[in-house]
């Protein structure tokens, strides 16, 4: 990794942490969702800095739609989506903090204690990466993705079915 890559990796990493923190510093749901989007874009930037072009672009593309739709749903269901009346929307703060710290320690331990394989000196070319990812998706990881995809589809159909208003049946 060149020093320039390392610099960009650091900058995007710090940006991701900063925006992640901003998510919880606002009472407006839309600001919160857009901060999360910025954090996700910074993660995409980290992928790009690591020469993982496809993953970076994919991350940046997918999150735009996902975070916006999430903002929309929060607008619909929250009692104070604009954060105008300073309503407190947090609850069970202590257990939440404990779980958060615990999960953080766990992730850190996993990252530090896993015997990672040695890093490759040179990342494969972007075209090669696209090819390899395609082969991976169509062979070893196929079952996982197909199962996940089918589950999501079933959930979507179920959600639509429950939301439909059926005409009243005569007794």
């Amino acid at each position, binding site marked *: 990794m060149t020093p320039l890559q390392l610099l960009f990796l650091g900058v995007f990493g710090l940006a991701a942490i900063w925006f992640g923190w901003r998510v919880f510093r606002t009472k407006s749901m839309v600001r919160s969702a857009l901060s999360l989007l910025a954090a996700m874009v910074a993660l995409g930037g980290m992928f790009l800095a690591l020469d993982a072009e*496809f993953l970076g672009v*994919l991350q940046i593309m997918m999150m735009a739609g996902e975070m*916006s739709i999430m903002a*929309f749903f929060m607008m619909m269901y929250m009692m104070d989506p604009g954060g105008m009346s300073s309503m407190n929307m947090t609850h069970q703060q202590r257990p939440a903090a404990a779980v958060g710290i615990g999960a953080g320690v766990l992730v850190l331990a996993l990252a530090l204690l896993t015997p990672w394989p040695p890093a490759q000196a040179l990342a494969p070319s*972007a*075209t090669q990466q696209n090819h390899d990812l395609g082969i991976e998706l169509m062979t070893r990881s196929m079952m996982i993705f197909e199962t996940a995809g089918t589950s999501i589809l079933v959930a979507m159909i179920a959600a639509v079915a429950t939301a439909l208003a059926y005409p009243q049946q005569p007794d």
Partner: protein
Amino acid sequence: MENPLTLLVVLLLFGGGVYALAVLEYWSVAGQLAWGRPARLVLHLLLKEEIRPRQSDTVLYETAPVLFLAAAALAAAVLPWSADAPLLGLATGALFVNAAFAYVMVAMLMGGWAVNGVYAMLGGWRFLGQLIAYSMPLVMALTATVMRAESMLPARIVTSQLELWNIVYQPIGFGLFYLAALALAFLPPFDFPVAAGELAGGVWAEFTGARLLLFRLGRLLLIMTLALTVTVFFLGGWQGPWLPGFAWTFLKTLLVAASFFGVGRYLPRLRYDQMLEWSWKYATPAALVNILWVGILLLL
């Protein structure tokens, strides 16, 4: 980009094209070609008083117009004008174009929310709904062109059309992409987020002066970029006899953009629920059929 002269020519053509689009846009509304009007309008908007809505969200208010312009410009950067002239040769070009277009929606949503106005907010959320209608046909039509080229490199997609342009090879995909492009640039008949006469300007209602100028310039840039995308992915890009490559790209792009405005001039605005219904019930399945069609052709 090897040759700085080609780069200069391409940039000049792109800028000139955007100016021509501004003239065409006025033609599509008023029916006359006023060549000096865009320049006068730029001066007017730059000198106009800036009116800020009360209690607007400063960060989002300032970010939205810039992000809108940047998204359109970034998408244009990966599209090739001739065999040796993409500004940025990305191996994931086709995906990158989609990623950039997604942020058009984010910018509109931001702008709609930031100004603290009802019409603007409605316009912003409407565009999010519109995204759900146009994004699937858009992405799946692009996917089919990528399948044929076996590469996401836009230049490779152009060379895959040497024998037969994609508009003939996959006409369903072309039709879907064309309509989705109209919806993405919120041109009539899909101009719901700004909806003049209904939402009083929608997302743009509260923006004035230079920021409104950025939005309107960004929209023209977006239309130009979308027309360029249609040219590269479906109309054989730079291919054509006699003229140099970039001239063909320019002519095709301008023709596609003019047709965008032509459609808007003769069609009324759709009903919002009809657009969503038709998109999900007919356009998305048609996009899947298109992928199947291209797959069968590739295997034959």
